[in-house]
């Protein structure tokens, strides 16, 4: 019982920890978005991601007589200088440029005093390096300063974009009313200074608006929102803090949903185990139940007693699971936060806080699981006639649903319908593959039942050439006349093997596709980017002076530079990229799903109307086809682009539109680029060029083909780390379930063991017979689970993944992994059977 409670606890813990870790990773984003004023009332952003500074007077005019503080914000990234290719993953800090003078006025606006210990100057004023000739002033968060041991007045070295700068710590951010929960990677700078450092002189990323506190604040907020929306046109959008808070959640929804569903599967396997154990307990205590029934205890009372026992076990397992889950979340959160960091946005989450809502959800699922698992054995205990229970050698049916192949067939048919169903559209236009998830559960349930039809076949096969192996002959006869317990054990294995196989197909398909994609797109010799560029939210860019100098290096044969901006289209995040479409010797190739016309590349995307190509996920998410036109927001106004081709892209799930880099630079008035792909002249020493460039430009990182590929695959493996863990948990739990099922079957067949011994079978021979029986169950579970995993793989690759992310993956079955699993499951199954059989025989001898 202790083991069982532990297993349920593991299921609850897996679910709870994943939910907590997800929540922590997303809340890391929330904290950071709330940080500038702590409690801004409105956020004004542009669909193009950028606003010109001269928009501020317009906003002021639109607000008219409404009293409001405007706080323009520019975001950037600063990186801790790193050596060599380590710069790729260098520690990055989120830098926010704000008008410090205006921000310091907030204190008076909010009528609160800065707390003791705050070392931020009362009036920082304009102290830009440009004006004072000194080093740039930075204000790290208290956590960041503590972590790095930075003190006020200390000189520190940081990389902004592609250059190293000496900065001085002008103060530590106060942790007062308007500076809540600062993340540990936050640095605040004065806006003009940051604009100067990052060559974004007339640019801001958002404007935060705050009204004086009081009961008028809400009225002003509504009125201001209305007036600003009227004055916006296409240039900006107004959002409340709540809308901002949901941004991160929406962005990572599919990712989080996938993990939650996976952790639910761990719970399903837990349910199966409780069911197995309670069934075993019913078998063990049949004489006791029969005696109670004979003494006049009603079937209802017996049923209630068993259900109570299941719930008590569920309660103990749930409490233990919540505690274990919280501890596991502290370990999982780093893996998930790293994935979120690499794929979605910056966050510095290291710990997952306890959340009562998530705890209640996990506890409810745990209790529900134990109630469901207890129901069938309780029914069996109460409904089997006492006489039958007292009779020796009676084999009970167990769960009767598992003996109805028609039910299994019906579930599989339903699964096939759900398999083909379209996704659910959310209010914000995103796709949620609910039918796909439903199909997964229906396939699993149906296949679990249908797998039972294989027992007669394997029973017959097991008899083949069993002349000299009476143990196998006996085991085959057991399989030929399989009981409900055989079927239940098989169903559990089918679920676990299918879950394992399905996940393996997903990961294998992803890996094959991404590797092929990398082979195709990474043909250049060297790749140049700013330090810290492996983080999805890095805003570091190569300045024109830097990339043009490198481009003109005599060692360079060809070079392709590219830039990208995150924009919002139809209210949803996507990416607008610019690259050298006319590059002579194409170093950056693409896998074309719809190839653009020849003249597109020859003309570099130019023409009367801008032309561009889109990624597969863009085409899917925004329902665009080749030939369609799309109006893209840019700081210089909306631009119409004709879409002329579709390419495969696994770099992001938001979708990408690519236009000529010159065009993009003109629209955004920004000559900086995100990265360069460089082909060197024949005979050039890659390592020498790499080293020379990094010495000349310490703020950049130059990686060769192999290094970049390794880094890309590292991020890939990190993304699937949690999935790997969950699938192994599933298989281990199912094998434990097989052992429990065998134990309950053999307990029920105690008199048969006596007969076998009387007929001359020794302990080892009985062990061998049960090993064959167990291996037979494992083989059926493996066969049906293996087939099901191919179906689930198809579902995940072509339905769930496509609907959630819009990616086409090459369906790949990792046969080596599946064969290893097969050998492992049958081997461990046989071992479990041998040990169970011989131990029980030994025990029955001892008890005699």
């Amino acid at each position: 019982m202790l083991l069982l409670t532990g297993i349920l606890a593991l299921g609850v813990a897996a679910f709870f920890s994943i939910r907590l870790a997800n929540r922590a990773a997303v809340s890391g984003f929330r904290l950071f978005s709330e940080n500038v004023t702590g409690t801004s009332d409105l956020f004004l952003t542009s669909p193009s991601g950028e606003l010109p500074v001269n928009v501020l007077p317009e906003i002021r005019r639109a607000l008219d007589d409404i009293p409001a503080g405007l706080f323009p914000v520019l975001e950037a990234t600063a990186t801790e200088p790193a050596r060599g290719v380590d710069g790729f993953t260098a520690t990055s800090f989120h830098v926010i440029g704000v008008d410090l003078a205006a921000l310091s006025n907030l204190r008076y606006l909010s009528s609160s005093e800065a707390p003791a210990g705050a070392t931020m100057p009362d009036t920082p004023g304009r102290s830009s390096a440009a004006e004072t000739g000194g080093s740039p002033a930075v204000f790290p968060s208290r956590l960041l300063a503590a972590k790095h041991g930075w003190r006020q007045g200390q000189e520190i070295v940081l990389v902004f974009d592609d250059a190293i700068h000496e900065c001085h710590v002008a103060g530590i951010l106060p942790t007062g009313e308007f500076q809540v929960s600062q993340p540990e990677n936050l640095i605040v700078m004065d806006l003009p200074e940051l604009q100067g450092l990052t060559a974004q002189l007339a640019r801001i990323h958002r404007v935060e608006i705050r009204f004086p506190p009081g009961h008028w604040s809400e009225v002003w907020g509504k009125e201001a929102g209305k007036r600003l929306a009227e004055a916006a046109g296409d240039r900006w959008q107004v959002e409340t803090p709540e809308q901002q808070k949901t941004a991160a959640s929406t962005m990572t929804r599919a990712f989080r949903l996938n993990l939650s569903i996976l952790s639910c599967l761990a719970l399903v396997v837990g349910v199966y185990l409780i069911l197995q154990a309670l069934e075993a307990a019913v078998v063990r205590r049949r004489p006791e139940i029969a005696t109670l029934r004979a003494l006049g205890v009603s079937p209802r009372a017996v049923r209630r007693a068993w259900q109570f026992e299941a719930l008590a076990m569920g309660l103990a397992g749930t409490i233990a699971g919540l505690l274990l889950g919280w501890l596991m979340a502290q370990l999982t959160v780093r893996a998930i936060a790293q994935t979120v960091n690499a794929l979605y946005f910056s966050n510095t989450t290291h710990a997952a806080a306890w959340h009562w809502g998530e705890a209640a959800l996990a506890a409810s699922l745990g209790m529900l699981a134990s109630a469901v698992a207890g129901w069938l054995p309780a029914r069996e205990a109460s409904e089997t006639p006492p006489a039958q229970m007292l009779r020796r050698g009676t084999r009970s049916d167990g769960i009767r649903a598992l003996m109805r192949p028609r039910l299994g067939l019906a579930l599989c048919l339903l699964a096939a319908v759900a398999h083909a169903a379209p996704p659910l559209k959310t209010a914000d236009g995103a796709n949620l593959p609910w039918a796909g998830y439903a199909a997964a559960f229906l396939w699993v349930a149906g296949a679990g039942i249908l797998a039972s039809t294989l027992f007669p076949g394997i029973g017959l096969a097991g008899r083949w050439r069993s002349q000299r192996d009476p143990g196998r002959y006996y085991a085959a006869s057991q399989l030929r006349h399989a009981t409900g317990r055989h079927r239940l054990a098989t169903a559990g294995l089918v679920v676990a093997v299918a879950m394992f196989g399905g996940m393996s197909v997903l990961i294998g398909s992803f890996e094959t596709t991404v590797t092929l994609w990398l082979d195709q797109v990474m043909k250049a010799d060297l790749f140049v980017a700013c330090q810290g560029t492996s983080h999805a939210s890095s805003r570091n860019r190569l300045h024109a002076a830097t990339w043009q100098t490198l481009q003109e290096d005599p060692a360079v044969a060809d070079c392709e530079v590219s830039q990208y901006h995150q924009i919002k289209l139809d209210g949803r995040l996507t990416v607008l990229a610019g690259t050298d479409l006319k590059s002579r010797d194409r170093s950056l190739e693409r896998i074309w799903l719809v190839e653009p016309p020849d003249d597109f590349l020859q003309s570099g995307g130019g023409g009367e109307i801008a032309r561009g190509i889109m990624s597969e996920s863009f085409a899917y998410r925004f329902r665009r086809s080749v030939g369609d036109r799309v109006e893209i927001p840019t700081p210089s106004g909306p631009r119409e682009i004709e879409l002329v081709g579709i390419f495969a892209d696994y770099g992001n799930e938001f979708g990408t539109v690519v236009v000529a880099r010159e065009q993009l630079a003109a629209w955004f008035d920004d000559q900086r680029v995100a990265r360069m792909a460089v082909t060197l002249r024949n005979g050039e020493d890659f390592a020498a060029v790499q080293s020379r460039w990094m010495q000349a430009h310490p703020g950049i990182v130059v990686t060769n083909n192999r290094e970049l590929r390794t880094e890309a695959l590292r991020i890939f493996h990190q993304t699937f780390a949690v999935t790997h863990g969950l699938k192994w948990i599933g298989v281990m739990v199912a094998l434990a379930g097989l052992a429990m099922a065998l134990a309950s079957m053999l307990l029920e067949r105690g008199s048969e063991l006596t007969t076998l011994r009387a007929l001359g079978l020794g302990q080892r021979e009985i062990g061998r017979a049960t090993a064959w029986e167990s291996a037979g169950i494992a083989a059926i579970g493996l066969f049906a689970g293996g087939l099901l995993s191919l179906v689930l793989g198809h579902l995940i690759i072509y339905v769930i993944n496509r609907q959630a992310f819009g990616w086409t993956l090459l369906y790949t079955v990792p046969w080596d992994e599946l064969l290893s699993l097969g050998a492992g499951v049958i081997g461990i199954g046989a071992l479990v059977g041998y040990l169970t059989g011989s131990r029980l025989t030994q025990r029955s001898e001892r008890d005699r």
Partner: protein
Amino acid sequence: MLLRVSNLHKSFGPNEVLRSVNLELRHGERIALIGPSGSGKSTLLNCLGGLERADAGELTFDGTDLRALSGEALAALRRERLSSVFQFFHLLPTLTARENVAFPLRLLGVPPEERRQRVSALIDQVQLTERQDALPEQLSGGEQQRVAIARALVIRPRLILADEPTGNLDSVTGAAILDLLESLTESHKTALILVTHSREATRICRRVLKMRDGTLAPADDQGLHHIHTSTATP
């Protein structure tokens, strides 16, 4: 002498079940053990069959000291020379009647053709030719016990240990089973130790030994308690 038991002791914790039991059995001899519940009849039978280990005393079967044998060797002995018949039949529920009878021959590795012949002959002898493909749950109690007797005889054992073989049957069926046991052990020259509560069952045995409180009652000059029994009416 097929079986020689001398000063056999067996206890379960503080409870001494067998106290200095002595017994001798000749080849082909049939004896009955009678006695009240808890007197140690079944325990003695289990010790004789190697299913239970005696604590002390001597136990020789067919020239082999059973107490010196390992568990595996005892299993081999049961496979080759000793059979049991139980009150609750204890057929293997997933094998048909014919397969149950054939199973001990499989354990011995008897070739298929010989196995078929021996099984068919016995199935005929116990009159189950028509029911040989039925599973145990499809057979009546009497039919199941006939299968169990055929299974016990199929290896041509030296000794059959029968523990209340008619205890779960009505009197008519019980009598028929006893007749069958008598005739088959006679024709196969097989010794039989029959544990029973029923005096009626003792009619097929030449000697009847009475057990009380773990001991056999005072015996004749061979050290056995000999009760003369005439053929009783059912």
